[in-house]
């Protein structure tokens, strides 16, 4: 298989260098750019599979560059930004970015997100169309026939209880389940010390499906109410 090419854009050369080392270790080709204009040029002229781009850059700001690239290219774009506020994230995503990573980021997480985006971009396209007994939420796909979960197209190994919990939450995506209800419906017995038990399972599932379990994107705790699986 041909090596996938990733464009890394940041005005801080050391960061670009570090990221490219990590990505090259994972077997990707890396193209470096240091401002928005250069990024747009590369995105238009080279065969690029994914773009990692900073927001605050000289010449052309990252968001403007994304808008420009999105006019012609449909490829995953991940924003790297020191701005950590929700409003910044929403702005970035609404400009056409597929993911938003705040600085300072964990390099492993960055790599995981890159992989996730690339898998979805390259392999997931056909799965969506064929099967009807699949529940897809973002990176996650649950096969209700085989009771299997895939994240970015890769199977996730879950225990039976975990599978039941995931199935319940994914079938009712967005609905908040109190721990007692999860307990009753998964264990089929009256709730007893439900909160701890459910929470332990939730944390384990997170570790298997989330890129950064400490900041879950899909399996979320609704504090004081319950749990849910929802789009990020």
């Amino acid at each position, binding site marked *: 298989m041909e090596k996938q090419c990733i464009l890394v854009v940041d005005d*801080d050369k*050391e*960061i670009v260098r*570090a*990221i490219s*080392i*990590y990505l090259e*270790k994972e077997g990707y080709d890396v193209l470096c750019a240091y401002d928005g204009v250069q990024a747009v040029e590369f995105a238009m002229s080279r065969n690029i599979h994914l773009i990692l781009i900073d927001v*605050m850059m000289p010449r052309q700001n990252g968001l403007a560059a994304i808008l420009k690239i999105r006019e012609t290219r449909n490829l995953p774009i991940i924003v790297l930004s*020191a*701005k*950590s506020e*929700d*409003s910044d994230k929403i702005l970035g995503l609404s400009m056409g970015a597929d993911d938003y990573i*705040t*600085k*300072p*980021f*964990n*390099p*492993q997480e960055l790599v995981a997100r890159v992989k996730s985006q690339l898998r979805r971009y390259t392999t997931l396209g056909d799965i969506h169309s064929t099967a009807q007994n699949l529940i897809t939420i973002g990176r996650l796909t649950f096969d209700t026939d085989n*009771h*299997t979960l895939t994240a970015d197209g890769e199977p996730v*190994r*879950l*225990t*039976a*209880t975990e*599978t039941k919990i995931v199935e319940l939450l994914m079938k009712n995506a967005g609905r908040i389940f*109190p*721990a*007692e*209800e999860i307990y009753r419906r998964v*264990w089929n017995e009256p*709730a*007893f*010390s*439900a*909160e*701890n*038990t459910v*929470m*332990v*399972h939730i*944390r*384990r599932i997170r570790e298997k499906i989330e890129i950064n379990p400490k900041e879950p994107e899909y399996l979320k*705790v*609704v*504090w*004081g*109410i*319950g749990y849910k699986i929802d789009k990020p």
Partner: protein
Amino acid sequence: MDTKSTNHKKANVLSWLCFVLSVSILFTVAAAAVQTFFSGTTAVAQAKQSLQTALNGNPQETAAFREDVSQIVYAALTDLADEEQRGSFSKAYPNLKWETSNILLFAQEDSRDTLSNTGSTDPESARNTRLLQSYLMGAPEGYNYMLLFDGDSLVIERDGVRVYDTDAMIDSDGYRTYFSKLADKDGEFWEEYPDLSDLSLVMVVAPNLRADRDSAVLSDAANELFSLQALWLGGAAALVLALVLFVFYLFSRDRKAEFDRQLAQVSGEVWFEIKLLFLGWAAWFCAQPFLERASVRETLFPLLLLFWTLLFLLNDIRYNPRVYRHNSYRSAKSWYLSHQMKKRFQQRMMSSFALFAAAEGILFWIFRVIPSSLGAWITAAAAAVILLLYLRHFAGILTDFARLTDRIAEMKAGADAPPLTFRAESALAPAAEDLNSIQSGISHAVEDQVRAERMKIELITNVSHDIKTPLTSIINYIGLLRQERELPEHVQDYIEILAGKADRLKKMVQDIFEVSKASTGNIELHPEPLILQKLIQQTLADMEESVAAAHLALRLDLPQEPVYVLTDGNRMYRVFQNLIRNALQYSLEGSRVFIQLTVQDGTALTQIKNTSRFALDNLPDVTERFVRGDDSRSTDGSGLGLSIAKSFTEACGGSFFISTDADLFCAAVSFPVIPGPQPEDQEPAPQYENQNRQAEASHSIAPIHSEEQETQPGELWQEAREAEDPEASPSDQLI
């Protein structure tokens, strides 16, 4: 600039003067015309005649000439007709010599007595003969005017034209009034002098009253002619001048209006009653000659005065709104008030009461002393009016008091209201002003504070952003170093230390950012109803590993009924996480940590109590940013935990406080309880009985089935979980 303004001023004055002069002249002329017109037809005729006379320039046409002539005739006739009066003529007209006079005169009584100025009394003398022949031959040479009296009728010819004839009833020059006594044969004059019928008189007068002759006798006529001519010519000239000036005024109306404004500015300073008095005086001054039916000349000045006074007042009214407001009463009042305002409030009240009491006292004294009952009534009425005025004043003060106190209450409540405005004369106006300035001072201070906070946020945002970028590199390159396997072990140790510190730095930057945002109320909140017990249990479950790692016993005391509060779950999770972490970190090893939730008076109070490892005396305000109980700052944590807890709790609508008692540290979070959702659209409310947990040192949280079993040790949560959920163990078979 300066010269321009002075030029402007000059132009203003000039334009105004033009207006005043032209209008005055026109007014005078008009007044004269109107008065003449209304004085009757004779006056009009007289005016016409005088104009004619002035135009003709013949003194023989003047009234003075007619009067003089008639007097001479009467004097001559009485001299001859009355024996006793003999010689009176030459006494009355001693200078009437023919050589020097414009007159030649000859009178005789039946040829016995004669009277003449010709130098000869003999009728046969050449000059007298010529004179006596005048009737037939016309006036002698050098004379154009001839008067004949033949003892019966009187005939006057001027330039050969008969201007007066008692028989033919001719009177084109207006001699009738002068010769009425002579013309009336049945009148007193004829009765007194019946001999008049024996008399005859011839008199001729030189034309134009030649100046080379002594015209003393007829000088009146010359004077009158001159004054008539002067009057008409002067009048015409004045009229022309007035018109020219008026045209000039029309071209510079703006300048005049400017001057009017300046004038109004000056006149605005004058009390209204003074203006009224002046107007009244002018009116009286004007009315008097009118009432006395004085001539034009006497009426004119007062009329002009009245006219200009009225115009001046109109100008005043036009440019000064509510002219009547500037009067002596108001001035006195404002003077009194400004004087009063310098005093303290109590002094003001005292002095206004003293003024009132003094006025009432004086009136009472007058009431007692005054003899007439009408006066007594008036005094009593005045006293009542003063009482009412004082009460009104007092009521005004009370109203203002109410407004002032209301405003103070509003300010306390934090309402932003427009500044308080009192009437300037209100006794509380200075207090209101003070309050307004306090209010604006407060709002300025608040604004400044808000601005400072915003700047602080901006600073922190920028700084944290600036720190984050190099931190990204640090973390990334530490990560790369970590992957180097060939490095000696001690270097790897160093790298681990670096990694830990970099992580801590990362957390701190995030915490600083969050706490500064929360403490200034700049965070986005999503409040929703949630169950506090659940929140606490979820938090504990989430932190299970660190709870297990700490050698502490955790005791949970939660009520059975779910306690609903309206708050932002994500933020409150952070609050409890920080509080529990704080408890875990600073507790004395082996001691117990209590988490209690109680509901009282609609308030849910969550307390997290622990026994401190360090002495808590002289505890600084630990909720301040970066303040830590131990001061050594060696332990993990940013020092922001309690600060985050406090600012988040307050941002979410709760209150947060910390208390210490000896070594007992207690953090309390309280929220108002809200009613739970309706049962039909909700899962059956979870019961919290049997859910108080206890965990002993070195053990995880263990569920306790009842209060009695609370102290029962040994039942590990791990075991319990495995018992309930065998699949959840790490040895679970994977799907």
